[in-house]
């Protein structure tokens, strides 16, 4: 079997590069018993491994085999061992159709089937595995356990791959040799010893022959060796040469490589050089500062425009050079750091130079002798203009900007120095200016030179020592003396026409009175206050124009101050670059921290910066003009002392300015300062009004005087007239309206109160007289806000007039009145008028009796005495009012007369009874009496 297998392998499978794994000698079951073919299972030696099952037939003639049919293993569907109960040699293989075979032996069959199963197991995927049926389980398991190799026959190649590869088929040559050798010694099998002997004999023979032939061929070998040696020499020679060549080529190659490297190095170096050059060029360009500039910075004359210009451009260049943003590390370069150092020293030096120069300029300006300007402005209310200073300074503008960026501390110091110097200058100027203004006021107030100069001395002293006690007393004396003077004027009764000289004389006398009396006067001040202020108000024409002068002077003062402030502010902004653009550098850190780029953030930051800048400007302005506010409020106080009424003027004037300034710039220094002043003035004004109200409330009537128009009513009228002239078109109308209202209210109360106190004059007279006066005044002034009050006054006036007339006239024809009242009563009870005369009490006789009692003469007499009384009651200079009262009397009289006549004609028709005097008579009487006065 093994031989067959061997033969099969050799003849059939090796040429096909297959390896035979299992073979079984089969015959067709049911066919002839001749075992005619072999079933072989083989695998290809090449991968991918294919497994074939082939039927091979032995040719009848000769020992050759032929493959009859070949299936692939995967075609195998069912393997039926037919051994469910007993052992048999039959088995079926089902490919495309069922083939029935019977093996030559059971063992053979088993071995083959096991081999098949193994192959299937190994090479086929699980799902396409054929079914193995009716095969003893042990067979399958055994093959699976893999012990097959040890158990299998030694001739059969193991199913293991390793075992399969170990097997080496004998080559044909060996086989034939072996066969021949065996055939030559046919006895071999029978006599092994002989065989081995012959073999060893042969071997030794062969050995000997070998040795002989080896020895025989030695010469040849030697010559061969020689040849070989020669050849070797040649070869080594060639090799040596080749090595030489190779060496040479190698040298060249390395040189070439080096050259290549060098070239790229050179290129890089070139590039680097050019870049470096470029950088250096740029750097030098940026850092270079021309000699001219350096020179300018070092020694250019800052006093001349050209020098300033040169410095400006040099400073700018320096700034630019210094601001150049150098790449990191570049500053480590010696040259760069040297240059930077140079710049720094230049900067410091120039900053110092500029600083010092400007300081001297400022100092010069600050200490400029104001005396010269003072002399020329004694009589002219002018502030010296700072325009030339500004003009002188403005060329330095750019330099200041440079300084601001370059040297912050110097800049700040410069600002301080500037403000200090200017503060000195402005303080002097403004002090002088305001002293002049005060002088003007005093002159205008028509006060005697002596007092004027005294006041001036006082004020100039007071400007030096703000609000010292000296000022207080002096100015109080001033006011008092003024009041005194006017009261004296009043006493003399000719205050309006008083010539200046006479006044001087009077003053001379009163001045001596002032000192001893001043204490007393001050005590009586409040009481006299009313009279005094009244007088100062009533002091008519020239004082009125005086006040106008005051307000015009005050206006002048402000309109001088304002442009000065504004100019200075503008100059500051320009000169010190206080604006939003350069504000970033003004606020170190502050805004950078909260850097947010949202639109709102930017807007709010900008707003913040603007506010900051305004604040900065205001701070500087406040420093420079520190004198202005106290001086101005002092001026206000001075004006107030001079004449309280001046606060009205000042209120209007400053109010106007404030609104104007407000429109211009709400937060500016000027606006703030004026605002403060305005509050001051407003307080003065309120005080003034309050004092007035107090005075009205405290007013009392002189004991033995005829009442007439009450002084405070007159005063109110004057005040309103004056205030109207001042406030006519002012924005501060509401304030004065409020004052009017409170004043008039107190005036009403005072009138009623005083009327009650009056002994000599009937209260009605006091009231209607005064209300009449007020009404006249209000009507002529036409103050819209006082319309309500005007109506009230009119009502009161009419009421009081009526009640006065009725009470005074009474019933001049007493008996007639009684008679006719009786008549009326009778008529009222229902008696017809024509029948009244038939009653005893009201007969015609009775009537005639009554009428007789009032002759024309009597009536006239009665009226005359009445008129006399009226004249006595009313004030002397109120003729018009007297006439009005008289007229009212007349009307009332005639009304009564007409009533009587009416009743007579009604009740006593055709009796021809009439009064003894006619209406014409009455009118005649009245007019006679009126004209007789």
């Amino acid at each position, binding site marked *: 079997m093994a031989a067959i297998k061997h033969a099969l392998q050799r003849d059939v499978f090796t040429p096909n590069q297959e390896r035979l794994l299992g073979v079984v000698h089969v015959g067709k079951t049911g066919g002839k018993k001749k075992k005619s073919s072999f079933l072989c299972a083989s695998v290809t030696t090449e991968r991918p491994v294919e497994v074939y099952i082939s039927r091979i037939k032995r040719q009848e003639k000769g020992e050759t085999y032929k493959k009859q049919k070949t299936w692939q293993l995967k075609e195998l569907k069912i393997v039926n061992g037919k051994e469910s109960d007993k052992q048999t040699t039959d088995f079926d293989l089902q490919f495309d159709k069922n083939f029935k075979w019977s093996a030559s032996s059971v063992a053979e069959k088993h071995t083959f089937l096991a081999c098949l199963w193994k192959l299937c197991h190994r090479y086929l995927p699980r799902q396409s595995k054929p079914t193995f049926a009716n095969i003893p389980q042990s067979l399958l398991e055994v093959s699976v356990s893999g012990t097959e190799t040890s158990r299998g026959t030694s001739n059969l190649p193991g199913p293991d791959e390793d075992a399969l590869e170990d097997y080496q088929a004998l080559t044909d040559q060996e086989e034939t040799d072996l066969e021949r050798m065996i055939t030559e010694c046919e006895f071999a099998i029978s006599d092994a010893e002989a065989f081995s002997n012959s073999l060893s004999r042969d071997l030794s023979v062969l050995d000997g022959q070998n040795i002989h032939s080896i020895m025989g061929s030695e010469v040849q070998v030697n010559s061969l060796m020689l040849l070989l040696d020669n050849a070797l020499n040649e070869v080594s020679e060639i090799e040596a040469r080749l090595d030489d060549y190779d060496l040479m080529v190698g040298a060249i190659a390395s040189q070439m490589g080096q050259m290549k490297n060098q070239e790229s190095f050179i290129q890089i170096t070139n590039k680097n050089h050019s870049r470096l050059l470029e950088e250096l060029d740029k750097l030098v360009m940026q850092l270079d500062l021309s000699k001219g500039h350096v020179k300018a910075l070092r020694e250019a004359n800052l006093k001349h425009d050209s020098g300033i210009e040169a410095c400006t451009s040099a400073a700018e260049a320096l700034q630019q050079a210094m601001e150049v943003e150098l790449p990191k590390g570049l500053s480590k370069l010696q040259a760069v750091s040297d240059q930077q150092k140079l710049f720094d020293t230049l900067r410091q030096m120039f900053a110092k130079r500029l600083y010092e120069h400007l300081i001297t300029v400022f100092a010069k300006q600050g200490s400029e002798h104001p005396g010269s300007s003072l002399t020329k402005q004694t009589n002219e209310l002018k502030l010296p203009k700072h325009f030339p200073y500004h003009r002188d300074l403005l060329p330095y503008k750019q330099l200041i900007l440079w300084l601001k960026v370059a040297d912050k501390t110097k800049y700040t110091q410069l600002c301080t120095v500037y403000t200090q110097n200017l503060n000195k200058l402005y303080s002097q100027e403004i002090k002088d200016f305001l002293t002049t203004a005060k002088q003007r006021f005093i002159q205008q107030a028509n006060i005697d030179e002596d007092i004027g100069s005294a006041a001036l001395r006082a004020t100039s002293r007071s400007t030096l020592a703000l609000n010292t006690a000296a000022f207080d007393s002096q100015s109080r004396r001033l006011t008092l003396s003024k009041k005194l003077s006017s009261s004296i004027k009043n006493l003399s009764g000719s205050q309006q026409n008083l010539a200046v000289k006479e006044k001087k004389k009077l003053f001379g006398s009163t001045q001596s009175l002032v000192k001893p009396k001043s204490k007393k006067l001050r005590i009586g001040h409040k009481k006299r206050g009313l009279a005094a202020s009244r007088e100062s108000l009533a002091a008519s024409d020239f004082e009125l124009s005086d006040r106008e002068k005051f307000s015009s002077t005050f206006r002048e003062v402000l309109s001088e101050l304002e442009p000065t402030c504004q100019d200075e502010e503008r100059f500051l902004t320009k000169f010190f670059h206080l604006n939003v653009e350069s504000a970033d550098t003004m606020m170190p850190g502050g805004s950078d921290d909260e850097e947010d780029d949202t639109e709102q953030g930017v807007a709010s930051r900008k707003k913040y910066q603007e506010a900051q800048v305004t604040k900065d400007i205001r701070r500087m302005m406040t420093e420079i003009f520190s004198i202005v506010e106290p001086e101005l409020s002092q001026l206000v106080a001075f004006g107030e002392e001079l004449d309280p009424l001046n606060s009205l003027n000042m209120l209007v004037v400053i109010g106007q300015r404030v609104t104007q300034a*407000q429109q211009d710039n709400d937060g500016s220094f000027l606006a703030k300062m004026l605002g*403060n002043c305005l509050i001051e003035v407003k307080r003065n004004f*309120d005080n003034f009004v309050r004092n007035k109200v107090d005075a009205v409330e405290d007013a009392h009537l002189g004991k033995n005087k005829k009442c007439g128009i009450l002084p405070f009513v007159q005063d109110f009228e004057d005040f309103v007239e004056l205030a109207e002239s001042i406030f006519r078109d002012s924005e501060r109308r509401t304030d004065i309206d*409020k004052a009017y209202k*409170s004043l008039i209210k107190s005036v009403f109360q005072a009138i009623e109160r005083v009327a009650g106190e009056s002994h000599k004059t009937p209260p009605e007279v006091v009231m209607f007289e005064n209300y009449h006066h007020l009404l006249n005044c209000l009507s002529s002034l036409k103050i819209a806000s006082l319309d309500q009050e005007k109506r009230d006054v009119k009502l009161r006036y009419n009421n009081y007039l009526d009640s006065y007339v009725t009470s005074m006239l009474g019933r001049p024809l007493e008996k007639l009145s009684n008679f006719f009242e009786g008549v009326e009563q009778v008529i009222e009870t229902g008696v017809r008028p024509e029948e009244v005369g038939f009653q005893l009490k009201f007969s015609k006789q009775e009537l005639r009796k009554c009428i007789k009692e009032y002759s024309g003469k009597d009536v006239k007499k009665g009226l005359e005495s009445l008129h006399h009384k009226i004249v006595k009651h009313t004030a002397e200079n109120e003729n018009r009012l007297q006439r009005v009262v008289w007229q009212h009397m007349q009307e009332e009289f005639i009304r009564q007369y007409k009533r009587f006549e009416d009743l007579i004609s009604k009740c006593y028709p055709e009796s021809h009874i009439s009064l003894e005097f006619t209406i014409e008579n009455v009118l005649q009487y009245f007019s006679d009496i009126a004209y007789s006065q």
Partner: protein
Amino acid sequence: MREYKLVVLGSGGVGKSALTVQFVQGIFVEKYDPTIEDSYRKQVEAENQQCMLEILDTAGTEQFTAMRDLYMKNGQGFVLVYSITSQASFNDLSDLREQILRVKDTDEVPMILVGNKCDLEDERIVTREQGEQLAKEWRSSFLETSAKSKINVENIFFDLVKQINKKTPEPKRKKKKSSGCALL
């Protein structure tokens, strides 16, 4: 009679004068006229006793702010007014309050937060809650008022008097005659 010095503060045009005049004189002033400074006196009965209120109506505009320190020094109680129709006027008050506390150098000052013009509900911008919230932060009282419709006007001043009484109980009754000069 005890005197109370009250100060009305706030931005321009929020109705400080309107509130004050409404309280003192019972009139609603329609016309806007920037105040410089006005002081009023009014005698009222609060907490069962007669009080003289001296009310200082101040300027709201930026220009007159320099005098604020003075008001704040002298004032005993403060009315901080904003308009419910203006967010800015509401925002300004915090600065004012800080200034008051700084000038007074204390943490607690009798103070009331007032949202005026509450009749203009249509134009409202500052909500009631915002006002209440701020007042809570300040630990002060809060009222929404209308000078025009006379809402809560008197309560402002009564509340303030109450606060002052609570903080500084009336000192020994001094026999101090009121100066008698009253602006009516």
